[in-house]
């Protein structure tokens, strides 16, 4: 991992929200609550071999992550969405592990940003 690696583009997300810090804080809070559920849904869908469910959950994730400017995680979600679409989940496990790691890092980064601003 490069030293200046950015898990998400906070400034970019803030700009999308019209510079509203409160709104960004709330958005992060909801993401912190919702992302574990979405990861679980993805994990279960992949285990069950349910390509349709993988596609839907990955699509949702992709949309959320792109709002936050979390590029690598967005990419992983997009790869999973495509796998679901192609009904080929053979590489889903590895991508899911990568997505889980990215999302965990993102959540940690959000929490530390929240801590430093309080």
């Amino acid at each position: 991992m490069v030293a200046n690696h950015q898990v998400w583009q906070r400034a970019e997300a803030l700009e999308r929200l019209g510079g509203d810090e409160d709104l960004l804080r709330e958005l992060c809070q909801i993401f912190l609550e919702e992302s574990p559920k979405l990861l679980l849904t993805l994990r279960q869908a992949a285990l069950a071999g349910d390509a349709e469910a993988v596609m839907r959950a990955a699509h949702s994730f992709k949309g959320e992550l792109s709002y936050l400017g979390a590029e690598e995680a967005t990419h992983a979600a997009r790869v999973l969405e495509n796998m679901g679409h192609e009904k080929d989940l053979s590489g889903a496990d590895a991508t899911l592990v990568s997505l889980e790691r990215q999302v965990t890092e993102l959540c940690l980064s959000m929490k530390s940003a929240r801590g430093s601003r309080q």
Partner: protein
Amino acid sequence: MSQTPPPNEAPVSSPCRGNILLAEDDPIYRWLLQSQLVKWGCRVVAVKNGLEAWEALQAADAPQMAILDWIMPGLDGVELCRRIRATEQGAYRYVLLLTAKHHKEDVVAGLDAGADDYLTKPFNVDELRARVRAGSRILELQAALIKTQGALQFEAAHDRLTGLWNRGAIVDLLQREALRSMRSGQPWE
């Protein structure tokens, strides 16, 4: 006289006209869209999937503007669009479709299915506001047009001075009544 509008009335700068139906399955986007629209003084009916959206649109006072996510369980945004256009009676519905980046072909399919405009995720809230405002302008123009049409229809059939039916309207009515009588074999009423 007080210049302040009543608290339940939308602010002057509100981009909305009437209620807005919001159909979005993703909880974060639904929250984001709803919280912004409400902040701008819009009345929002928020649902989580396409079937709930379709149900909400069947109500007598259903919102005239709909913001629909493209990919939703049940009925997707494009199928909803097609249904809305296929069953439209009377007032026009304005449909704003939400699509994902990297899905440009979706935009074409969406507009072909009858969407009026689209917004690409991740969107900027200022862009959302501008697009909702543009949609409201269309709905306002349409409402004004319907009003004018009604007034013109009245004017065409009534005497301007007395407000009674004019000669053209009476002749028209008599002709229709004569035809009805001949068809049914029943006397004039």
